[in-house]
């Protein structure tokens, strides 16, 4: 793709605001440094470059956060984001009560899995801390951002196991219950690899009898052995290449597996139908300039064919990462849809 690179760089700049282009290009450049051809990952440099923020129990824009250990055995941390109480008097001795029970009104609890193609970012990465805070404000929800183990150091199924551990933890917190039935109203959400994790955790939840009210998948990361039309057409054009997608799958999937592994391709030749399976309603957001959209659309088709409730939002001119900065219409469109999705209780 070397020859076409000059053109593609300008193309991408034409469809996203300048600061977004800088942000995502910066990631692209940095990530190029971190992926080694032999499949190893420069974790030290990755952690050095990643911009992180601490949790903050002092409300900022009406949201405060704190970290919890969900599972000491795996050092699994999660960051909890809550709306600050409107009433000052509710804080005891001037200190936020972190585990104050939610109200009798239904408060959705969104378990969020950050993106990063299974290898990058953390729950305390600045971009995801910011995104989770926005979700709290927009949806009036509690957000639990899971710091799942990443590849290549921890391959499949570690991320799914961590997601499942977080789900069980959330489901068993009395202070996250709300509504008349006093239960935790759980939604699973994630972008990129996080969306993939949300799907698999929802599957496990269904098998185990924990109710998930809905799945929100933002540009979810799926794939397959075949090279789809969108992959060929958009390769290298909007920040992402087939080559880097392949690298991340090789880093996440078990050694020797190919991209038709069900983790990567849930409705592919090794997948299984979800017909009759307990599965939450899904909101799937697909960016029209994301090269893996054919896989994402195939995912939506797979859910539909199985008779599952799925709502697709296809954003023709959106690229990956459009939801990271609130400087474009796609952001607001999607946030509105998410808000509606978690506030319509079924």
């Amino acid at each position, binding site marked *: 793709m070397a020859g076409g*690179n000059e053109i593609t760089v300008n193309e991408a700049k034409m469809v996203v605001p300048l600061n977004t282009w800088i942000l995502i290009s910066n990631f692209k450049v940095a990530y190029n440094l*971190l992926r080694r051809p032999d499949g*190893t990952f420069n974790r030290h440099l990755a952690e050095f470059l990643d911009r992180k923020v601490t949790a*903050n129990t002092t409300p900022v824009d009406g949201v405060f956060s704190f970290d919890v250990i969900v599972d000491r055995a795996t*050092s699994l941390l999660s960051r909890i984001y809550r709306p600050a109480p409107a009433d000052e008097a509710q804080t005891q001795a001037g200190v936020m009560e972190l585990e104050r029970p939610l109200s009798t009104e239904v408060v959705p609890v969104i378990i969020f899995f950050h993106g990063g193609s299974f290898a990058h970012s953390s729950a305390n990465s600045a971009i995801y801390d910011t995104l989770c805070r926005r979700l709290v404000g927009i949806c009036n929800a509690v957000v639990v951002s899971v710091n799942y183990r990443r590849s290549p*150091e921890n391959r499949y199924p570690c991320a799914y196991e961590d997601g499942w551990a977080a789900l069980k933890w959330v489901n068993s917190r009395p202070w996250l219950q709300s509504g008349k039935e006093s239960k935790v109203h759980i939604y699973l959400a994630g972008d990129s690899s996080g969306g993939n994790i949300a799907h698999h955790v929802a599957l496990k939840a269904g098998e185990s009898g924990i109710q998930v009210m809905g799945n929100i998948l933002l540009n979810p990361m799926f794939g397959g052995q075949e090279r789809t039309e969108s992959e060929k057409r958009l390769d290298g054009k909007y920040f992402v290449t087939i080559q880097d997608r392949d690298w991340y799958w090789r880093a996440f999937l078990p050694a020797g597996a190919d991209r038709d592994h069900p983790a990567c391709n849930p409705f592919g030749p090794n997948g299984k139908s979800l017909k009759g399976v307990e599965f939450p309603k899904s909101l799937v957001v697909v960016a029209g300039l994301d090269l893996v959209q054919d896989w994402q659309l195939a995912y939506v088709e797979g859910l539909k064919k199985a008779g599952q409730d799925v709502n697709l939002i296809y954003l023709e001119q959106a690229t990956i990462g459009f939801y990271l*900065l609130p400087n474009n219409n796609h952001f607001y469109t999607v946030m509105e849809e998410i808000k509606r999705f978690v506030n319509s209780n079924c």
Partner: protein
Amino acid sequence: MGPYDYGISAGSSSSSSSSCAGGKPTELDGLLAGAGYKVRSSDLHQVAQRLEKLETFMVNAPTEISQLASEAVHYNPSDLASWVDSMLSEINQPFPVSSSDLSDFSDFHYMDDLVTPPLQHEVLTDAWADQSAQQQQPQPPLQQQQLTVVAAIEEDSGIKLVHLLLTCAESIQRGDLALAGTLLEKMRALLSRVNTGCGIGKVAGYFIDALSRRLFSPQAVCAGSVLENEILYHHFYEACPYLKFAHFTANQAILEAFDGHDCVHVVDFNLMHGLQWPALIQALALRPGGPPLLRLTGIGPPSPDGRDSLREIGLKLAELARSVNVRFAFRGVAASRLDDVKPWMLQVGPREAVAINSIMQLHKLLGPDPNRGSPIDSVLGWVRSLNPKIITVVEQEANHNQPEFLDRFTEALYYYSTMFDSLESCTLQPEKAVAEMYIQREICNVVSCEGSARVERHEPLAKWRARLGGAGFRPLHLGSNAFKQASMLLTLFSAEGYCVEENQGCLTLGWHSRPLIAASAWQAVPLPDTNSLPTINDCVL
């Protein structure tokens, strides 16, 4: 705030926010700031251009990528413009000058290449610890800056204790000492029902003691004798990695600053047992081109029993230096307070490259002193006058010097809870028990002392940046090489859960996601009439 400003200031304490549309050109782009990157709005186009250039390079010369990744040293990723520029300049110079690493860890320079099938946990670390932590007892997980979440069995008592502690502190602040006393009794009673061996029970006990002291015996001195302090310090050094990290990171920066200098002089603001210096001496011994003449001036309190303990340490270090063929000279400066030290006592030579090393000393100068003006200003003033090549500063990353008592107390409760939690992973005894006493002394000072007796006036990195910047210093950024070596050091010597983070050119070490100690390096901003700095030349001995 307009619709496009939503969440600009979201939680990120270090970003300066501005609206993205119509803001002043010198302001930072607010949205990028929220993502952790400081880019001036007026620079956006330039940064984009340079990123493009870098991307093109990377596509056309993929072998450059591995070089950028493994050899180039990266600095201050928050400053996106300079990060991109530094990589562009790396590409233009195919042979980067690499600085010497500390000899002890020179192996690790190559570890990247020797290792790693993807599951090599020992080498690759995750900032929030990917790997299993072996915990023998059920322990309440502790978090930064807030109420602790305790194990199910203790849940009610633990949370109640924290509530009572905070209420007690608040009543002290209000002046309702009778209520405070009652609460103390309640807490002691509660304490007897809680497991004081670990977690909230242990740390609450120390805070209850400190509050009692504040109420009933405020004149009682928190500090021990000089000898006691040294013993506590030494055990704290062994039991957990905070001081090792401090020494290691400072040494790395000093080593780099001394590159090319033949005569170097380190001034240590608190010599203690000189634990920091053997590694530096060894690293200097092994540096390409041979070691410089090293002078070390160690400042420390006068020994009460007539021993010259400073000199004793100096002799030991001299012996070590001799054994590795490093020309070495030591001078001890006995002073009970840093602001008692006068620059002439340090006898800095005109051609020496000077490093000032302050490990957790500067905060002690923030107390009020009616007789002396501002101790911190006077010390920073004479430091600057020495025109040092580098000043290494390590400080507790905590806000324990806030004007309101309740704020300080709350911060301390969370800070030390986190630190105690990290200590739980230590299995060395008696190091662990004595290290706890070391921490307990600090707690005592923060909570029960006031005025000039309260010396543990910790301030966070952001405040030190402002203070040092205002005193005529500019940051020397600690880079990815120091970060990597610090991370590797941790995986070797410490339990899971510790993490190193980069913070705008500084490095922090923390437990889980809470930074507890911050290391930074500084240089004096050149005064207009400054002479050129010493380079390789003859020294007057």
